[in-house]
């Protein structure tokens, strides 16, 4: 069973991948509309911060959804060099945030 610290680690890595995807999209065209990408990035960061904050208080039980979150995080990382379209970034980031949200529910 993963610990609260390990789940917080997964969420932090997901937030990191979301930031990398956002940065990559901005690097392609700094003048684009990044509102939806930013929403995914800051939501992932907020979920990670909440998990770290909660984990500092104790060690609640967690579930295997963490593995799915890690899989999406790794997929984003592996595709970063090939993604060119904002829509492609967005689809993956939405999936990431969806799993991150499910994982973070274990801290409530």
């Amino acid at each position, binding site marked *: 069973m993963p610990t609260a*610290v390990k789940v917080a680690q997964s969420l932090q890595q997901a937030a*990191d991948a979301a930031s990398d995807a956002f940065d990559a999209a901005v690097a392609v065209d700094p003048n684009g509309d990044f509102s939806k990408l930013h929403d995914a990035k800051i939501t992932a960061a907020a979920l990670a911060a909440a998990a*770290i904050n909660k984990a500092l208080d104790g060690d609640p039980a967690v579930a295997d959804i963490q593995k799915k979150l890690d899989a999406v995080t790794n997929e984003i990382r592996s595709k970063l060099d090939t993604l060119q379209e904002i829509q492609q970034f967005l689809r993956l980031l939405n999936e990431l945030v969806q799993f991150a949200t499910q994982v973070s529910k274990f801290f409530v």
Partner: protein
Amino acid sequence: MRLSGLFPLLAMASFAVTTACSNAPILSNAEKLARAGEAAASQMQQNALVTADQYTLLKDAVTFDAAFSGDPGNPSTSNFLQQETQIQSKLSVYAGMLGQLAGAYAALGDLAGSDASGNFSSAIGMLCSSGNTLLAALNEAQQIPADACTGLPAGGGLIIRAVQAQQVASASDQIEAVLKTLIPVLDDSATRTLIVLNSELVQRQIISTVKELYASGVYTCSPLLDELGAPLGLKTISGVDAVVRNNRNLRNGCLAFVSATARETAGSVGAAYDTSIAGLKALIPLHDSLRAGAPLDLTAISAIITSLRELAARLQPFKR
């Protein structure tokens, strides 16, 4: 008759000299321990405070980032900052405890140098209070033992050195008891991991904003390129920014440097925490030596203070 009347006085003088001599090492050792402990705790506190400074930079970066992205007013932004405020509040308790520890060592030094039992009583009380606040913030049920927190009896202005030495030994034992309660909690790998994770999360958000500014063309990479070329006598040409802007490989190289600097700083946060714990642990045998009247070996704590200062310099890029 006159000479025989002097015997009691000579005996008392002899006792006073013997007592003073036997107490001299503990008092001088206590002054050395106090100096080392105060320096170590102060440096640990400085390094812990860098994290608090980062938070101001984070707020600016996140606010800018949201507006840049056309996403101001997103509730996740305020949620993120709120979570970080709470985390920073917990971390500031840790920094506060280190400040009180430095204060307790300073008071121990005063006690060894003169009769300042009142100062120490106040300092150990504040250290215990901040230590217990830290334990509560980390959700620990245990508290610092009450007998480690009680004040010393006042000695008066003409305190004899034997009493002074006894007070110094007691004060040293009290600080050691506080350290022995706090170290196992702070040395917990989960606490350490979470502090480092948070630092990485915070820095990643700041770096993301720096990268979007760089991609937008408001920064020059020439300081880095000049630094690389300087040892070989090379200097960037005028108009270097246009060259970099039109060359994707050069842009990537400059961005990689930004990321590497951020990673190095994040690693320094973990190292600073580990070194601080090592510093707290290194103080324990010094207290034991003081109690035993043995010479103090300050080699380990001196090396740790030097490492903490070097780490502070590496953490500077994110200090505001």
